[in-house]
């Protein structure tokens, strides 16, 4: 096992996070390591494609679109001395997210609409990182609002973009060009790439203020 990021390991082309916990979404667990499945988690896909994010483990992170906590569970392994504010607005997946939050001390589960950060502005502190995966047409606008409310000046963000949810009538490459342009207008672009072959017509955009 080779550590390629804090608490993230690579072995024979497979990704793992170091973890004291059991399986959350059906992933394999090998003596202290949980397999991180790139088809299930876009962040795993990005890392397997060679991109790295330098986490110290102490970060405060705001996660928008936590769903049932697949990716959140691995981030909780990575930020073992930090805090994750996990926002999700759908009740069904949230039930599973709650189970995760009950066993992990570093997850604060929040059943809120990410497009209205006002409503949780007195709950979430200033954070070092915003992660967004919400497949919504106005996801960039939602990101901007949350950055305004919560991201520290020196903070960074990572978003996952699905072409079809932004605009299903234009080609994915056109959509991605437009989205990237909008991000670059206001922020610094650190990296962007497709998530193929793990997630079709998806890209990630990694940036900072």
């Amino acid at each position, binding site marked *: 096992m080779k550590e390629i990021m804090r608490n993230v390991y690579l072995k024979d082309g497979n990704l793992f996070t170091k973890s004291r916990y059991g399986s959350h979404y059906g992933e394999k667990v090998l003596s202290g390591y949980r397999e991180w499945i790139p088809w299930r988690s876009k962040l795993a896909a990005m890392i397997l494609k060679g991109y790295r994010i330098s986490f110290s483990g102490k970060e405060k992170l705001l996660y928008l679109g936590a769903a049932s906590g697949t990716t959140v569970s691995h981030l909780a392994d990575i930020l073992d001395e930090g805090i994750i504010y996990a926002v999700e607005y759908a009740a069904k997946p949230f039930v599973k997210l709650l189970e995760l*939050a009950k066993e992990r*001390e570093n997850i*604060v589960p929040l*059943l809120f609409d990410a497009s209205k950060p*006002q*409503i*949780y502005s*007195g709950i979430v502190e200033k954070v070092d990182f915003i992660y967004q995966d919400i497949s919504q047409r106005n996801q960039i606008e939602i990101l901007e609002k949350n950055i305004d409310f919560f991201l520290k000046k020196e903070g960074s963000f990572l978003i996952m973009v699905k072409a079809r949810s932004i605009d299903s009538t234009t080609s994915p490459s056109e959509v991605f060009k437009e989205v990237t342009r909008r991000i670059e207008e206001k922020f610094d672009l650190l990296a962007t790439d497709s998530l193929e072959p793990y997630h079709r017509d998806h890209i990630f955009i990694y940036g900072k203020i």
Partner: protein
Amino acid sequence: MNWNLWFGKLEDNKLNVVDFHIAFQNAQNDSPLPFNLFEVGRSLFRDDRDYYKTLRKIAIKICEERVEKELKREDRYVVALVKALEEIEESKNLLSEKLDDIRGIVENELTKAFDDRIKYLDEMGKMIENEIERVMTKIAPNITELLGAKIAAKLLERAGSFEKLVKLPASKIQIMGAEKSLYKALSRIKKGQKAKVPKHGIIFVHPYIRQLPKSKRGKMARFLAAKIAIAAKIDYFRGELNESILEAVRKRYEELSR
């Protein structure tokens, strides 16, 4: 400037601590806080860890309550089941009618095929009824207790959703379900055809109403409808069975049947 925070209110730089459960639910602000929430709140707690431990506990508790409420949208499932059940019952009746017609003339393989189909629909209907019973007792124990799962579910279906049912006045609940046959009757009358105008809604099939003499049914229906309105609210907001409602309805029935 005032700021609403999950542990209290910051008013002109003075922190007023409020019950955390209340404060958490009112932690709204129109603009970003010009300070770090954690820095302000930390002094209230033993240490950094305690801050997060408390916040997490409250978030879990409140969001768990909210999620349960949301999941009560299982009412949509009930609505779909009631619709399916009605379709099935209609097909069954139609087939039985046709079967009788045919049987009056011949008895052969074909009539057996009809028979099998009807039995099959019967079984499906029972399965759906069981499922309605299971879900209704979970999401609406009080109206289910009062009306039986099937009638209670029909009421929910006519209202459209649990939320809408809760907002209906008792007077509306009393006649609910009669609208459809009312329109049908009115349109027949318009066309110059004969029709009976219905006087009763769904709840009139309740034994406590049907077993009473005609002159007293109206009174019982009004009383029952009022209790249903209360029961529905308890189901929606708390979801726990309240025995006293059924008791009151039973007592009123006994009074009227004397």
